[in-house]
């Protein structure tokens, strides 16, 4: 990723880099909220559709080794069966299947808030065959990050 791309990504603008055998989309955004709040929002499966306009539903338990079923607004007819592959409390989380992985990281940014980053890398030897059928994630990633920021900051301001 270039320096310009990193800068865009931190503003909640998604960037995508493509190679012959893979595609990687990243978004990053500063959130003025406690790490635990952001983490709780990302790990409470049934609550996702309430605050996240890109998710139709997530069934299952978001915990290490667990399998979840996710429906996204990108394609509401498909249910993605994913496995939670890494789970570091309040700092990082990833889930995926044979075609790709999505990683979430939450890093304290020194101003009492956090920097949230979400990256999805899809690919493999067969990737060139189906790449054109996979829609762009950029808009959806930006919406995800914006929804998370909005919800976490509202919660953080609870009196």
């Amino acid at each position: 990723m270039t320096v310009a791309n990193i800068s865009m990504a931190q503003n909640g603008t998604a960037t995508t880099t493509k190679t012959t055998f893979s595609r990687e989309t990243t978004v990053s955004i500063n959130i003025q909220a406690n790490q635990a709040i952001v983490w709780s929002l990302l790990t409470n499966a049934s609550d996702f559709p309430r605050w996240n306009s890109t998710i139709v539903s997530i069934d299952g338990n978001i915990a290490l080794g667990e399998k979840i079923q996710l429906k996204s607004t990108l394609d509401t007819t498909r249910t993605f069966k994913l496995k939670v592959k890494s789970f570091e409390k309040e700092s990082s989380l990833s889930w995926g299947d044979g075609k790709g992985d999505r990683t979430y990281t939450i890093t304290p940014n020194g101003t009492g808030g956090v920097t949230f980053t979400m990256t999805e890398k899809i690919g493999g030897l067969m990737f060139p065959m189906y790449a054109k059928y996979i829609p762009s994630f950029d808009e959806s990633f930006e919406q995800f990050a914006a929804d998370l920021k909005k919800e976490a900051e509202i919660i953080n301001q609870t009196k």
Partner: protein
Amino acid sequence: MQTTQLTNEFLQHKGQLKSFLLRLTASVEDAEDIMQDTYIKAAEKIESFRAESSLKTWIFTIAANLAKDNLRAKRRWTEDVTDQGKAAALTDKNFFAEAMQIRMTSPQGAFEIKEHITFCFTCIAKSLPLEQQICILLKEVYEFKVNEITEIVNTTEAMVKYYLHTGRAKMIQIFEGRCALINKEGICHQCTELNGIFNPQQNHQEELNKIEMAKQAHNPDKEHLFDLRMQIVQGIDPFESPSAELQLHHYAHNSRVMENFLKKNEV
């Protein structure tokens, strides 16, 4: 601090504590047992009380910890508990006979719509995760501050804020989908239906006009409508209200219904 001082303060908060425990357990017996255990534990530990919080917060901390271990408090109900309660009541020939007996003979047997709204809130709040339910009750009903709730539930301020926000959002969503008082499409009319049974002479519309939340049903601000609902709940002591015995009878009924349902479905 002296035990006498503890006793005096305990008596001062006894009503709130008992109703808090009833709302967690939905059981009069368990609420009374936990309250008694709370006093005993507080008396045993009174020398360790350092006045870093108010005594009321400290007492509620002990009670909340005991409640977290209580089977009935831990048991989570379903969002449609009032539908299930109604269906069971309609097939139970004793339910209305008992309820009518209370209605006719008890000094606390009146039926008031606002009391049923409180009953309904308590039942549906038992569908929230326990931590969320405790936080919502402490903040919205008993008016504890976030920092006091942090101490009572022994977690971080961030998590209390998370529980409060998500619990509140969930309750608003449930009532918006169910409660015919605030949504014309709402599927639950139980409070007005029961008013028709217990108070056949009353015009339920006139009764609803006495309830601010129902009067403001058209208000698109769902947060505000929830606040009005919470004002109703705050104003009612489930043990001392004019409808207490009738409502406690309903709690016992819904408890049985939920226990049977959960047992059957092994939840």
